[in-house]
Structures are given as structure tokens and as C-alpha cells.
């Protein structure tokens, strides 16, 4: 027999009260833990995808939109930019690497990205089966894409126009899956990669072998190809610090892909287009200089992921703080619940407490006995809270995994949880302080003489 067993015997008797308090505390803790897990994993993923990318260059518009569409493939792109402009950037001494991306089509909500081999290389993506895309109409798909669409090497599929489901299909230009990437835990897993030339082809932009000027809704682009002779086919060749040369040999085709909402016709005359370019800097000084000069001196827009991420987290942060406050309110309600339960219990149990004194327990022991009971409530709340918090996070993760982007797991712990647990335990003890002091002060002689 000990104080713990005695406390537990009382708690067992007060089943409903115990249930209510445990539940309240548990939900409060679970809410906060859910937030912790979510923001930790969300933040990590955001950082992982943006790692190493110092600047994103695209059409004018919202810089956040540019980052979201260019790095995370979440938002629609701001528009298209001339490839020649991107190539000029490549010539800049402060730039180490430029990865062009052409967006606009999707397959089963997975985005088809026309790019170069530098893109998968940046995320250290390895081919799990098959090979990396090379020729036109070849596609290498991310691990998640393969898993959810069932596509495998040798399969063909037709991309749909636009980034959401229901777009018009490009039936004349099926893609052939030539490779599947190993999981990288980055945005790469959810993308379908192909060459820039393939994307141009699909949109009926004539160049070298592929010559299909149909596709009515791009007719404005199609007629641009009359001016193809003015394009500079060797623009890729004079890249100073070249990454691998673009798989599209000489770019003669007129403008590329439509990029989201913006009509590309406006800048179409200047040659082939891409949607965004991911830029790595060669020197830290570029961080200060380049984005500013691009934004002020060109038709392009440059955005730095670090800055936009901070903006985004600040926006999201308001919501997170609100929910966190809600969690603490729940915990506070639980504190009140435990306090009232113990306060009443001490009134009911004054004979038992006096009897313990009569049997030889000191005032201090009685005090500890009541505190212990508050702590037990808190421990039960913590257990329920941990189970609920991680359980719900895992369930949300499972549900969202089939939807988009967010990979969430409840099977992970973050250091912040330790503080939540400590706060909850302290809450239990604090709630028990006044009842414990009451028990401490009980006049046993008077109580027993009643």
C-alpha cells in the first residue's frame, strides 16, 4: 500500500470526473502537439525543397507565387519568360547554375516539368528503374507519381493541358515513361520530368523533327514560328559556366509553353520561352545584388526563397498561433476541471485525510498525497494527449498523402513536445496546490469529532 495506490483508488471511484478531466487535458495537449508536428514537418519540407536554390526567376507577378510554383509546384506560375533572358543570366559571373523549368501540363494532377538533367541532379534524385529522360516525348517520373498512377517504364500517357484535372488532353503527343526515380523525400517525388523540347513539341511549337502546328488554342503561338529565323539557335552554346547543355539541341522553336494564366503572346516575339529558372549563386554577394538588379532592370522577376518562405511562415503563423492559443485554453479549462475535482474530493474526503493523520501521516505527507493526485490526472492527460496528437497527425498524414504535397507522419517526435508535457504536468500540480494546502490545514481533532 502506498500513496499512489490510495490516490488511484479515489481516481477509479470518480470515473466520470476523471474521464472528463483527462479528456479535456488530453485534447488540449493533442492540439498543441499536432501543431508542433505539423509546423516542424511542414517547415522541414519547405526548407528541404528550397535547399540550395538561391533565387527563382520568372515573369512579373507575386514573388510568393513565383516561389510556390517554381520550387514547390503548388501555385500556378506567373507566366513565361524568354529563354534568351535566362541564358543571359547564365552568363553572369555571380551565377553558378541555372535550371530552366517549363510548366503548364499535368497528368492526374502531377505536374509535367520540362527541364534539364540538372533539375533531378540538384535533388540528388537517382533513377530506380529505366533511365533519365533524353529524347523527345520521353518522361522520367517521380516515386510518388509511379506509386499513385501505377505508371511504369514502357507505359505511355497523355498529358492534360493545365495544372488541374480536367484539362484538354494532348492526344497527339503521348509521353513514354523511360524511367522511375527513387524516392528523394522532396518535391521531385511528385513530378513528371521531361525535356524542354518535349514540352514545346506537345504544344505544337515546331522545331527540328517535330512539326505539328495544330493545337488551336495556341494558334497565336503557332504563327509566331514564322519568325523563328530571328531566334538565336546558339544561345545555349555560349553559356559560360555551363551545366549540362540542354537536351534540346539548337532551340529554334518559337515560344514555349503557356504558363498558367498569363498569355504568353506578349513576349513571344523574343524566342523560345520557359516558365521559371532556378538559380544557384556562385558568391554570397549575389544575394544582395542580383535579385535587385533583375527586378529593376529587366522584365523578369526574381524572388529569393528564404525571404518568401519567411513571409509565408509569417502568414501561416497567424493561424498556427490562433490554434495554439485554443490548445492552451483547453489546457487551462482542464486545469480548472482538475482543480474543482480535487477541491470537491478533498471536502468529501476530509474524514479520510483526518484518519490518515490519526494513523500517523504528517501534514506534509497529506499535502504530497493531494499533489500526487493532481499529477496523476496530468499524467493521464499527457498519455491521452500524446496518443491523440500523434494518432490524429498520422491519420491526417495518411489522408493527405493521396491528395497533395504534404507528407505528414505522427510517428515522429519533436523536441518541443517535452515542454508541452512538462507544462501539462506542472498544470496538474498547480491545480492541486490549493486543495493540497486545504488538506494540509485540516483540523483533524475537529473533523474527527464531527
Amino acid at each position, binding site marked *: *500500500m*502506498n500513496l499512489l*495506490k*490510495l490516490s488511484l*483508488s*479515489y481516481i*477509479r*471511484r470518480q470515473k466520470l470526473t476523471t474521464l472528463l478531466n483527462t479528456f479535456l487535458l488530453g485534447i488540449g495537449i493533442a492540439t498543441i502537439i499536432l501543431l508542433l508536428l505539423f509546423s516542424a514537418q511542414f517547415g522541414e519540407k519547405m526548407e528541404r525543397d528550397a535547399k540550395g536554390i538561391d533565387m527563382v526567376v520568372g515573369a512579373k507577378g507575386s514573388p510568393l507565387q513565383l516561389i510556390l510554383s517554381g520550387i514547390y509546384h503548388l501555385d500556378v506560375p506567373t507566366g513565361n519568360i524568354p529563354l534568351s533572358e535566362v541564358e543571359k543570366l547564365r552568363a553572369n559571373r555571380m551565377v553558378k547554375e541555372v535550371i530552366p523549368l517549363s510548366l503548364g501540363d499535368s497528368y492526374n494532377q502531377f505536374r509535367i516539368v520540362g527541364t534539364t538533367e540538372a533539375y533531378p541532379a540538384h535533388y540528388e534524385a537517382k533513377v530506380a528503374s529505366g533511365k533519365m529522360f533524353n529524347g523527345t516525348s520521353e518522361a522520367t517520373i517521380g516515386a510518388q507519381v509511379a506509386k499513385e498512377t501505377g505508371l511504369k517504364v514502357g507505359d505511355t500517357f497523355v498529358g492534360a493541358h493545365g495544372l488541374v484535372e480536367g484539362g484538354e488532353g494532348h492526344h497527339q503527343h503521348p509521353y513514354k515513361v523511360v524511367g522511375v526515380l527513387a524516392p528523394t523525400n522532396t518535391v521531385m517525388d511528385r513530378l513528371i520530368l521531361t525535356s524542354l523540347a518535349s514540352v514545346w513539341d506537345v504544344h505544337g511549337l515546331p522545331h527540328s523533327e517535330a512539326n505539328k502546328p495544330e493545337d488551336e488554342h495556341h494558334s497565336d503561338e503557332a504563327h509566331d514560328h514564322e519568325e523563328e529565323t530571328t531566334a538565336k539557335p546558339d544561345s545555349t552554346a555560349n553559356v559560360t559556366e555551363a551545366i549540362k547543355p540542354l537536351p534540346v539541341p539548337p532551340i529554334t522553336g518559337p515560344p514555349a509553353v503557356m504558363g498558367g494564366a498569363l498569355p504568353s503572346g506578349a513576349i513571344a516575339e523574343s524566342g523560345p520561352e520557359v516558365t521559371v529558372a532556378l538559380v544557384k549563386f556562385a558568391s554570397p554577394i549575389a544575394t544582395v545584388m542580383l535579385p535587385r538588379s533583375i527586378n529593376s532592370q529587366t522584365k523578369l522577376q526574381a524572388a529569393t526563397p528564404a525571404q518568401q518562405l519567411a513571409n509565408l511562415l509569417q502568414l501561416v503563423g497567424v493561424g498556427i498561433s490562433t490554434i495554439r492559443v485554443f490548445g492552451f485554453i483547453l489546457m487551462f479549462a482542464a486545469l480548472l476541471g482538475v482543480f474543482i475535482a480535487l477541491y470537491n474530493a478533498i471536502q468529501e474526503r476530509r*474524514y*479520510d485525510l*483526518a*484518519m*490518515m*493523520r*490519526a*494513523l*500517523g*501521516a*504528517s*501534514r*506534509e*505527507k497529506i499535502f504530497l498525497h493531494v499533489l500526487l493526485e493532481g499529477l496523476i490526472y496530468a499524467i493521464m492527460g499527457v498519455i491521452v494527449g500524446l496518443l491523440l496528437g500523434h494518432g490524429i497527425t498520422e491519420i491526417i498524414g495518411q489522408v493527405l498523402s493521396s491528395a497533395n504535397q504534404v507528407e505528414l507522419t505522427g510517428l515522429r517526435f519533436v523536441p518541443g513536445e517535452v515542454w508541452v508535457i512538462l507544462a501539462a504536468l506542472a498544470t496538474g500540480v498547480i491545480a492541486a496546490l490549493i486543495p493540497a494546502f486545504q488538506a494540509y490545514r485540516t483540523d*483533524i*481533532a475537529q473533523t*474527527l*469529532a464531527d
Partner: protein
Amino acid sequence: MFLLENVIHQYDGQTVLDMPLWKAEQGEQWIMLGPSGSGKTTLLHILAGLLKPTSGNITIAGQDLGTLGAAQIDHFRGQNIGIVFQRMHLFGTLTVRENLLMAQFVAGEPQSEERVDEVLEGLDIGTKKFAYPAQLSVGQAQRVSIARAVINRPKVILADEPTSALDDRNCDKVLELLKKQAETHKATLVITTHDQRIKDAFGNQFNL
């Protein structure tokens, strides 16, 4: 044994107890008689160290209670004084066995199942070991409270109106058990009562 000298207790400025001397030898059995409100319970609580008198000296089993601190008095009581209350005040959430183990734990004594069995057998309620207080009759519950009072082999057993809630048959039995337990443990026994049925059961009478 115990010795009370010049014990005066005041409550709200009124003297509720004034006792020049009361001395009892080890193993003696006493009955304390007096009408309701005469201060029997107050005196018993003072004797048990539950209440500190306004003035006076109390010595129990050779120990002067006046020299002990609050926590020390609690500990001393747990080890040396067994108390049987009119209302039994058993722990309702614990079984009979657990009630007795609790008494050992709180007094700082080692918890012994054998001792629990021994005491319960001695009071003829061994079969109720795993029952909860609510499942006991009044007589059985009173025996459990006696068992709890003697489990730590006290030097002094104090019983406050132990028979007032009992019928004649149980009254005699409880009285007998108390006497027997006091003899077994060679303890000094004091019973307070206003119960006319038992006033002649003891040789030593103390009238308040």
C-alpha cells in the same frame, strides 16, 4: 502507560477541560465516563496527540509529547497509539486488507500480509479480507477499525464511544474484543463512553 498533569484546554476563551492528574500503568484498562459535552473526546484527542492542550504535560509510553515537533508527534502516534473511532472512518475505496496495509504504511511500519491475517483472524473476520467497507455490517466494520487500531502493536489503545452505534450483542462482543486485544498487545486501554451498558465492565473508572 500514560501520565497527564495539569492539563487545561481552552476553546474560544472558555476552559473546556481542566485535569490536575491522570496516571495509568502499562496494561491497565480504563473507562472514561461523562455526559455528552463534558470533554471526553477532547481529552481523548489530547491523549492521542491529535490536539495540543492549552497547557499541561502529557507523557505516553515514557515520551513527553511536549518535546516533539508536529511531524514527530504524528509519527509517534502512528507507532504507539491505536485509535478506534465512534464512526469507523474506514477508507471506502480500499478493501479491508488494504485498509490495514495502509495503517502500516502511514505509520512507517513494514507492510506485512502475515500480520494482517493474524489480526483479522484474532477478530474473527478473516473471511472479509477482500471485502470493501460498504459490504460489511456495522459490527464487522467496527472490528476492522479495531484491527486497524492494533495492527502496529500500539502501547496505548484509545476507543471513542466504540459501542454507541452497536446493538447489545455486538456491544458486548466489541468490548470483549477490545479487552482481549489490549491484553494480547499488553497495551493500556482507554474507552470513553456515556453508554450505561458498559460502565461496569472495567475496574478503573475515570469520571469527567
